[in-house]
């Protein structure tokens, strides 16, 4: 600091010093002027006595104010006048001296006024400086406060110009947008950050803000590093000094996580909505508040207002009490109840067997807020169970029948066999044939048996099919009732052929051929067993059970004609029956 500035500062400091009390100031004035007067008289005598007072007055006014200055002026004028006053003059002063005094008084007063103004200005300047300093502190604090707020907010707070170009982005905003240096994006058009629909919305928002309207939207925008995020944006105009928008404020909030959790929640809602099971929820008083579409379809409530329904309305009257007294309390107690109940269709009234599964719904603190159910339509299952029970019953019946037939075959075999060994052999072979027949039947759930297949299985133990035993005929489906007898008969024929007929030597063959003549149930089924190439044939002397069985049983089961012809070239057995009596006719 230069010497003059230092001096000026010193001067200013003295000037703005606290005003001293009046008596002190005026007293000091008098003393100073008195001293000046003495000095003047001592040093300068009576020549121009006024000039020494001027600097004193100036200084006094500067340091002590206008009042003292005026007083000093008056006293100075008097003092100076006294110095040149002569008692011999009538006015005490010569006219020249009077004019000089007056001039001195006036100019000095003027000087006092000027100096006073200077003093005031200095005081004001000082005051203003102090105020400015205070204001600066306040402003600095406010700025620190605001930038602290902006900096800590995680929202991306941006200021755009009216063209939508970025002029400012908060610190927090730069963080969430993953921008390391704002200069990278300064001046860029803000809508460019947005994709697809968001871009159009951003542009529209900028335009609206220019018109003075606030606008908000949700859109997808990638950060500067490319991370995709979802934002909720609020765009509003910043009014300038005249009141028209001259800048735009854009505040964007990252809602990616919120959206993710909403999407997750939506997934659960969609799960319930799309489930094929009955999903429903009710309050603790039993009133319903949710049913998915599958639920409404199951009980015929497609377009109904479900909020007026109670849990009890879904069950038939005889089950309502069970539900209220046992099911719901058990669910509350154990956390779950599942069992077979019936729902009642709201339109038709029919009972719908269901697997009812109910559980309590609790809020976050564990208090009961209602009941939820995921219930499965059990009709198919019931039908399947009933069907199985029926089938089991049928199978049991058929089994008993087979056993009765076995019993008869055993009893008749034992009755006609000459000894135990023969009996055992015959019985064994017959039971095998019986087993083969039932195999074919079981394959079709005891509904039918293909003639060819029955013949193949019954005859296979006796000779290779296709070489020594030939089968030929159309597809015929035998009724279950005739199948067993047919198989047993074939077995007997083959056994006899192996003992006495075409299968006894190494060259003979057996042809089993059948044909259907005519149409529908009245068509004639003709079956023929022809042996050839075997040893010479002669009619048997005794007809064992086997031969009897062949003719009698086939005649009975097929309700047709059956006869054995002992031709010399080979035995021929023929059977003729109405197709409808022995077989099932396909459409």
């Amino acid at each position, binding site marked *: 600091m230069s010497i003059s500035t230092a001096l000026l500062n010193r001067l200013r400091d003295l000037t703005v010093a606290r005003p001293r009390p009046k008596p002190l100031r005026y007293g000091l004035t008098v003393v100073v002027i008195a001293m000046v007067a003495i000095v003047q008289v001592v040093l300068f005598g009576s020549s121009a006595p006024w000039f020494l007072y001027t600097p004193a007055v100036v200084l006094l006014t500067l340091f002590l104010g206008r009042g003292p200055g005026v007083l000093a002026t008056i006293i100075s004028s008097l003092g100076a006048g006294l110095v040149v006053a002569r008692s011999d003059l009538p006015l005490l002063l010569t006219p020249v001296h009077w004019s000089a005094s007056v001039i001195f008084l006036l100019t000095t007063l003027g000087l006092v006024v000027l100096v006073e103004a200077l003093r005031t200005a200095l005081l004001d300047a000082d005051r203003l400086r102090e105020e400015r300093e205070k204001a600066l502190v306040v402003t600095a604090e406010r700025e620190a406060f605001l930038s602290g707020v902006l900096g800590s907010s995680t929202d991306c707070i941006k200021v755009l110009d009216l063209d939508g170009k970025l002029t400012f982005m908060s610190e927090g905003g730069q963080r969430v947008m993953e921008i390391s240096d704002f200069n990278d994006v300064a001046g860029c058009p803000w809508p460019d950050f947005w994709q697809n629909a968001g871009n159009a919305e951003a542009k529209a928002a900028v335009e609206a803000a220019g018109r003075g309207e606030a606008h908000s939207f949700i859109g997808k925008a990638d950060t500067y590093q490319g991370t995709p995020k979802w934002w909720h944006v609020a765009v509003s105009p910043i009014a300038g000094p005249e009141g028209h928008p001259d800048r735009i404020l854009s505040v964007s909030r990252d809602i990616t996580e919120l959206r993710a959790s909403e999407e997750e929640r939506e997934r659960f809602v969609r799960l319930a909505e799309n489930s094929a099971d009955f999903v429903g929820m009710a309050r603790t008083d039993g009133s319903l508040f949710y049913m998915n579409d599958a639920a409404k379809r199951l009980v015929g409530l497609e377009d109904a207002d479900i909020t007026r329904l109670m849990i009890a309305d879904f069950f038939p009257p005889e089950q309502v009490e069970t539900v209220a007294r046992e099911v719901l309390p058990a669910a509350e107690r154990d956390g779950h109840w599942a069992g077979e109940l019936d729902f009642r269709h709201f339109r038709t009234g029919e009972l719908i067997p269901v697997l009812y599964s109910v559980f309590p719904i609790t809020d976050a603190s564990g208090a009961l807020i209602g009941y939820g159910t995921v219930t499965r339509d059990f009709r198919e299952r019931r039908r399947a169970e009933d069907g199985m029970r029926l089938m089991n019953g049928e199978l049991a019946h058929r089994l*008993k029948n087979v056993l*009765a037939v076995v019993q008869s075959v055993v009893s008749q075999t034992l*009755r006609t066999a000459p000894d135990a060994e023969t009996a055992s052999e015959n019985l064994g072979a017959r039971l095998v044939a019986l087993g083969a027949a039932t195999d074919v039947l079981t394959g079709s759930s005891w509904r039918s048996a293909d003639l060819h297949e029955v013949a193949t299985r019954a005859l296979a133990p006796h000779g290779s099919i296709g070489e020594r035993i030939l089968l030929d005929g159309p597809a015929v489906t035998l009724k279950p009732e005739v199948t067993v007898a047919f198989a047993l008969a074939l077995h007997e024929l083959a056994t006899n052929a192996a003992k006495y007929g075409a299968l006894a030597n190494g060259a003979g063959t057996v042809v089993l051929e059948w044909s259907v003549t005519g149409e529908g149930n009245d068509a004639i089924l003709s079956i023929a067993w022809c042996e050839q190439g075997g040893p010479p044939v002669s009619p048997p002397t005794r007809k064992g059970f086997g031969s009897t069985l062949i003719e009698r049983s086939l005649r009975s089961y097929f309700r047709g004609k059956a006869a054995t012809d002992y031709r010399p070239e080979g035995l021929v057995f023929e059977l003729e029956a109405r197709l409808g009596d022995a077989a099932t006719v396909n459409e």
Partner: protein
Amino acid sequence: MGQSKPIGSNTILIVEGEALVRFDMTAFFEERDWRVFEAEDADQAIEVLDQRTDIRVVLIDATVSGRMDGLKLAHYVRERFPPTLLFIVSGQAPVPQEALPQRATFLPKPFDLHRVMRQIEQSPVTP
């Protein structure tokens, strides 16, 4: 119309649709010198009953068909020939007591013919 005396002759009517089983039963009784009449269904059975009035035992499979089923046939026999010994057999679910005619024995299939024979021999016969 019905007789009141038990029938003394050893005649039996067997009403059974399954030929093999019927043959066996027929042979069983014939071996023991019984006179056996066979019927495949209710119609054939009634034909036989129309011709003969001295049949001592009637054995009916409840599952036979015809103008009536085996159980109805049994009731018919009981009404028309009160002294007849009635045996009802079936491979299906057992017939409950209330559905059977009076003094009829129900036997599930397969059943023991010897037991039937014993029961017949123990029942009173008046010449």
